[in-house]
């Protein structure tokens, strides 16, 4: 190539124009503002005292921040028919039971599909992959019929069991195992006489920790954010998210408390993501679909 290559410290410098950098930064800032404004708004609202909430024109900042809205939220919570601790228990219990079962079953199946060559594994995985292509709402009503036949409607099981079989988790786990667990390690463990189950548990699972974490987070987020469900009618079995929605549905009197509720609910999944971001990104590295 005759053209001059710009070099810095003897390394090839990639073609990057100043204008391009500026344009990209500009677009990124605009989009970032668009993404951030609603988040900023809800945080600001949750910290505003009553007189600032209903000020015209509305202010884009707080002058006297207060935690009164959060206190009001807890007062409103304790005024409920069902004790609020019950809703918290419901959500925590279903989230944990659903997530633990999902992690265990999906990893077990993912290991077999990725690392044991048995007839039918490709077909099974194809089926799971296809199910990523349609949304859960398509099957909600027939699920309801099946669950009534199994008599698990209006029990915790109606939330927990389907979570065990959720598809994204298995998909990510299988792809990750395929790319980061080498056959040689497994083979040497098998030659030592270890059973498949033992090989799975002592060799493969410790190697895929980032995928565990990703699975846990996806499953937990789904269950944590679950609101009203058509599978649950009893008030004492409903989720925390549902209860909070009831509070926020109380109209303009509760604008402050409702903003506080949103902040409380969103803090949990966001902090979980912040802690585990690098692991999730690592897992996503193998998320690609090959055909």
């Amino acid at each position, binding site marked *: 190539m005759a053209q001059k290559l710009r070099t810095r410290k003897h390394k090839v410098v990639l073609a990057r124009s100043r204008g391009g950098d500026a344009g990209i930064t500009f677009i990124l800032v605009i989009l970032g503002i668009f993404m951030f404004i*609603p988040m900023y708004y809800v945080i600001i609202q949750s910290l505003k005292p009553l007189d600032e909430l209903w000020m015209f024109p509305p202010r884009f900042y707080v002058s006297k921040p207060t935690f009164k809205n959060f206190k009001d939220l807890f007062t409103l919570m304790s005024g409920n028919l069902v004790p609020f601790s019950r809703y918290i228990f419901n959500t925590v219990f279903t989230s944990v039971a659903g997530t633990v079962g999902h992690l265990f079953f999906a990893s077990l*199946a993912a290991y077999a599909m990725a690392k*044991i060559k048995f007839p039918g594994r490709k077909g099974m995985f194809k089926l799971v992959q296809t199910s*990523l*292509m349609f949304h859960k709402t398509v099957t909600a009503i027939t*699920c309801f019929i099946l669950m009534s036949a199994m008599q698990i409607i209006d029990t915790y099981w109606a939330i927990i069991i*389907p979570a065990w*079989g959720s598809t994204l988790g298995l998909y990510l786990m299988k792809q990750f195992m395929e790319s980061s667990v080498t056959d040689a390690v497994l083979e040497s463990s098998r030659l030592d006489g270890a059973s498949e189950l033992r090989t799975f548990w002592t060799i493969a699972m410790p190697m895929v920790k980032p995928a565990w974490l990703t699975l846990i987070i996806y499953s937990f987020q789904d269950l944590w954010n679950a609101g009203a469900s*058509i599978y649950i009618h009893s008030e004492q079995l409903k989720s925390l998210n549902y209860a909070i929605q009831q509070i926020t549905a109380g109209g303009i009197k509760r604008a402050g408390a409702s903003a506080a509720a949103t902040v409380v609910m969103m803090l949990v999944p966001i902090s979980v*993501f912040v802690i585990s971001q690098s692991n999730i990104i690592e897992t996503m590295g193998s998320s690609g679909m090959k055909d």
Partner: protein
Amino acid sequence: MSKTAEKKAVSRSEMTKAQWTWKEIKRNKVAYLMVAPYMLVFTLFTVLPVVLSIVISFTDFNMLQMPNIVWLDNYVRLFLDDDIFLIAAKNTFIFAAIVGPASYIMSLMVAWFINELSPKIRAIVTLIFYAPSIAGQVYLVWGTLFSGDAYGWANAVLLELGIITEEIQFFQDADWVMPLCIVVAIWTSLGTSFLSFIAGLQGIDKAQFEAGAVDGIRNRWQELWYITLPNMKPQLMFGAVMSITNSFGFGAVVTALCGFPSVDYAAHTIVHHLEDYGSQRFEIGYSSTIAVVLFVVMVGANALIKKLLSKVGGS
């Protein structure tokens, strides 16, 4: 070669495919035991419901009486006799055609823009863009940002600037409902595919870019098309599936912001139509028909996009 070995080899080649498969199945019993619990739950709550929906869609099942087989009556009614469904279908396609590509391109572009930033800044930007998709009910704030009174920021700003003289009832106005819902949908849509793109970009071998620069790649756009995208094709595929599925299944946000049904059915989608007949009117047969149609549309759109994506990078 000894006689026994010869015999063995012959019998091995004489074994039919079915016999061989059966032997393999027996040899791998433990693998089937390992997939069994997951596949059982998956079959019960994902595969069986789809099959059952198809079967029920040919009946007039309503949870009360014994169902009768009505063959294609439900499908005929859906496409010829149900004006609301046609509105819902139109809205769904507008929705998917805007939200799907917009969210996909935005995920890809943002992931690409931030790829060369330092890890700390990249983590922060990732959080800003990803947070709305995981923060639960936080999209409800759009309802207050665009609330119908002058306390909503949108109305307040427009009033201050003198663009309007009277508050706009954003979520009660048939002209505003759809565009606003699209904006909110895009806002919440930078989810799994976004993370997948970030990871895909990080995974590309840097040496390839340098080799590209030596080979005469002139600017970052050429680099994107000739090196970056072809290298992350599997992620592009996966991201497309996630974006399409989400853009067709988008319903809860509309219900939460606009009520059900939305004003003049202005943001009524197939998902709403399905919920209406399924969990409110209990016309299970008819709602299954809607579900089957939606299922076919989603899977069809995915198949189509996969074909298109296989052309990326000119290979």
